[in-house]
């Protein structure tokens, strides 16, 4: 029996024609109670290369366009057979149901936040210097500095910007990055078809924070909101 390549966990109507997967295989549904996985039976897993990533994303987007509640699977997720997949789905039915409820009728916008050139982009280094206990090794100093800059708090102006977007946002994940000038990635779950309004609001919010530069992409299927609650 061929292993299963998993594209998404979703609520799928009975008898839906799902089209084909990234190896041209027909997509199928494996159900476990209220949740289903959309899978393809493949001979071997896809290469982790750009064309396969795009193909995976294309399939997920097609499913998301068709169904209102879709959790994209991470690229490369496999199950050995139907029974193993059903068991795995059944073990976390509650979590999937909650996540499906959260993303229903919504899509994701992704914002990369940079410290603008010429601005004093020192929050990360300042925090590091603050915590520089001479007795601690570089690893401990790094971890201490990192612990101090969780979420939006370590980036001046970011929280204010996020507050301005809040009316359009159903859920938010903020990831800090160490590699300045990229200081944070923000993932926002927004109502479908609101991305134009979101971009407009982001542009206004960004103009109030000249020390930051932001680059938005999307709408995306809700990759960042596919598992657990943030």
């Amino acid at each position, binding site marked *: 029996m061929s292993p299963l390549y998993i594209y998404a966990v979703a609520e799928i109507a009975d008898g839906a024609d799902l089209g084909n997967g990234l190896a041209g295989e027909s997509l199928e549904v494996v159900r476990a109670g209220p949740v289903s996985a959309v899978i393809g039976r493949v001979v071997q897993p896809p290469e*982790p290369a750009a064309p396969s990533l795009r193909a995976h994303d294309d399939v997920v987007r097609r499913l998301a366009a068709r169904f209102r509640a879709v959790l994209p699977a991470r690229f490369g997720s496999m199950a*050995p057979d139907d029974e193993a997949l059903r068991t795995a*789905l059944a073990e976390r039915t509650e979590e999937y149901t909650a996540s499906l409820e959260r993303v229903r009728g919504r899509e994701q916008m992704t914002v990369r936040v*940079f410290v603008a*050139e010429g601005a004093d982009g020192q929050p990360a280094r300042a925090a590091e210097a603050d915590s520089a206990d001479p007795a601690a090794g570089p690893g401990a100093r790094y971890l201490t500095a990192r612990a101090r800059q969780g979420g939006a708090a370590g980036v001046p102006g970011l929280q204010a910007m996020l507050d301005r977007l809040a009316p359009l946002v159903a859920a938010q994940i903020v990831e800090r990055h160490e590699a300045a000038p*990229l200081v944070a990635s923000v993932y926002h779950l927004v109502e479908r078809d609101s991305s134009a309004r979101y971009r407009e609001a982001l542009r206004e919010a960004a103009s109030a924070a*000249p020390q930051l530069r932001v680059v938005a992409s999307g709408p995306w299927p809700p990759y960042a909101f*596919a598992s657990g609650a943030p």
Partner: protein
Amino acid sequence: MKAPAPETDLLEEADASLLDLVDHVLNKGVVVTGDVMLGLAGVDLVYLRLSAVLCAADRMLPPPDPKKR
């Protein structure tokens, strides 16, 4: 898809699409069975490079013009 500013257009349509794709498709998304293919063992490395390339792309862009903001 209309982006607000020229520098945003540039980054979005050039590099960001692939970089965002890598971030979203390899680094996010639900893992159902725990069996993610072995070929993806280098994903952390890919993701580290994502940050580096995003930053490099940022430096290629013209500095923001305050008058436009």
